[in-house]
């Protein structure tokens, strides 16, 4: 049984359907990306899984338990969107209290708080009140909170939203490091970030499940995505179209070139030679379509 199973999950807010008959099964292992436009139902889905809100209809099983059940204490954790710690109490005190609620003794809780604060590189903030920390630091503290007791499953709702690149990188690195022992589900609008971090993707739109599956698939052999420096667009497309095995070259919504080929390895080698010959600088070359192109490429 997968750690997350949803069957016919529906959530209504008055006449608004936030989740529409969602049936989903998510496996343990690599981080899973949860994506979709604003209002797609990502936060609602995570809130139902955490037991913050109750579904209108449908069944949910999380680590074999019902959301909100006592059996999930210490096994499931989350970074809820926009949730704040109590501004009046120090970070260390609140995290120790959370650890105690998870069943740790006083000494164990203290040690565990030191460990998670070290993970997010905020050991110095033990005695600081949340209001005295920057937005990025507060987010890292909230992630430290989610890692207390090394839970099996962690749900992160927009962990890097509104924070600066160094803090975002630190959070990504942390998720990557911890993903060998914890399954992460990460909701974000940053597709580049999710592409680098996650092994599979769940795409929601208007509360419905549009697709769910691995990020890499067999179609990766048929495409090359190339991000170029300054180059004459039509000249590049004409030249790339002449390469062996290439059947089509187009510009993506993200400004990259998408090259359709019958043999991605041979075409990649030829492409590199073309760039050398023409003295064109490239920024990034990757197999397959980007996540953005896969999700939204057909809509343009």
């Amino acid at each position: 049984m997968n750690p997350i199973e949803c069957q016919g999950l529906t959530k209504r807010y008055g006449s608004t359907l936030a989740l529409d008959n969602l049936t989903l099964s998510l496996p343990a292992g690599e981080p899973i990306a949860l994506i979709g436009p604003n209002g797609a139902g990502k936060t609602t889905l995570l809130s139902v899984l955490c037991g913050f809100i109750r579904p209108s209809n449908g069944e949910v099983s999380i680590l074999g338990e019902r959301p909100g059940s006592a059996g999930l204490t210490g096994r499931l954790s989350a970074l809820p969107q926009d949730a704040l710690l109590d501004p009046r109490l120090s970070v260390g005190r609140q995290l120790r209290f959370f650890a105690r609620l998870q069943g740790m003794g006083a000494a164990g809780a203290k040690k565990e708080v030191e460990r998670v604060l070290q993970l997010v590189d905020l050991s110095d903030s033990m005695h600081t009140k949340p209001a005295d920390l920057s937005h990025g630091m507060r987010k890292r503290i909230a992630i430290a909170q989610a890692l207390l007791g090394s839970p099996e499953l962690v749900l992160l709702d927009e962990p890097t939203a509104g924070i600066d690149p160094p803090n975002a990188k630190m959070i990504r690195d942390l998720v990557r490091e911890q993903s060998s022992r914890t399954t992460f589900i990460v909701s974000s609008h940053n597709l580049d970030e999710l592409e680098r971090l996650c092994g599979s993707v769940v795409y929601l739109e208007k509360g419905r499940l549009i697709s769910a599956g691995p990020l890499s698939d067999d179609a990766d052999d048929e495409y090359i995505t190339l991000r170029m420096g300054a180059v004459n667009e039509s000249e590049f497309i004409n030249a790339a179209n002449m390469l062996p095995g290439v059947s089509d070259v187009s510009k993506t919504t993200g400004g990259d070139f998408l090259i359709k080929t019958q043999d991605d390895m041979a075409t990649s080698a030829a492409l590199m030679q073309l760039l050398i010959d023409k003295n064109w600088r490239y920024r990034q070359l990757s197999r397959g379509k980007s996540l953005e192109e896969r999700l939204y490429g057909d809509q343009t």
Partner: protein
Amino acid sequence: MRLFSTRRGLVALFGFLLIWVAVLYYGILPAAALLQDAAHSGILEFLFPRLGLQAWENWPAAELAVYWVVTLYLLPFFALIASADQTASDRSRGTLRYLVLRCSRIEIFLGRFLGQCIIMFLVVAATLATVLVVVAFYNPDKLAATVAKVPLIVLNLELVLAPYVALMALVSVLAKSARQATLYAFILWITVSLLVGYLQAKFGPLALLDWALPGSQISQLLRLTNWETLNFAAIPIVHTLIFLGIGAILMRQKDL
């Protein structure tokens, strides 16, 4: 714990301490002196039964008699204000979500209620201690009899305060802040009072409606000085259970 470990909590405690010192110094002490001086004048025998205070002379010390009257009326208001923010601001801030990941909503709800009851117990104990000090200073021969009344007073005041704390636990589930919770409590109070008045005007005196509001037994308690006060214990217990029951249902159902 927040009350004792945050600046705001300590300021609230200090504020209450100042008010209590004022009540003690300008209220209880002069009133106790008045009772003692006028005990044989006949004025009190005339006046107090009309105020429902005919039992004052059964208390071992006049200070305790005045304390009983003052706290029965004053502490419920303090309980309403002090326990207004049991879950409201934690919910609007999102802090409750961190807690719900680690314990059940009912545990949070009842835990906060019990915490507030403990605070009320400490408030009663502290204020009573000040009265004992006064009695020990002015009437040391009455101290032993006064101390013997401490369990009676503590238990009764805790019973009186419990439904107020439970009411605030309930409205705190519905409110977004302590201020809003207090407002809801007053709206609820006035609505029930008006409803009771209307029903009694329409259908005549109904004994059950006399006990509809928390604290409706206070006027009876003023007449009593012994364990017969517990004859009225069922009223606050029923109020408390009703408020906690409704609050627990709302707490379980409300989105966080």
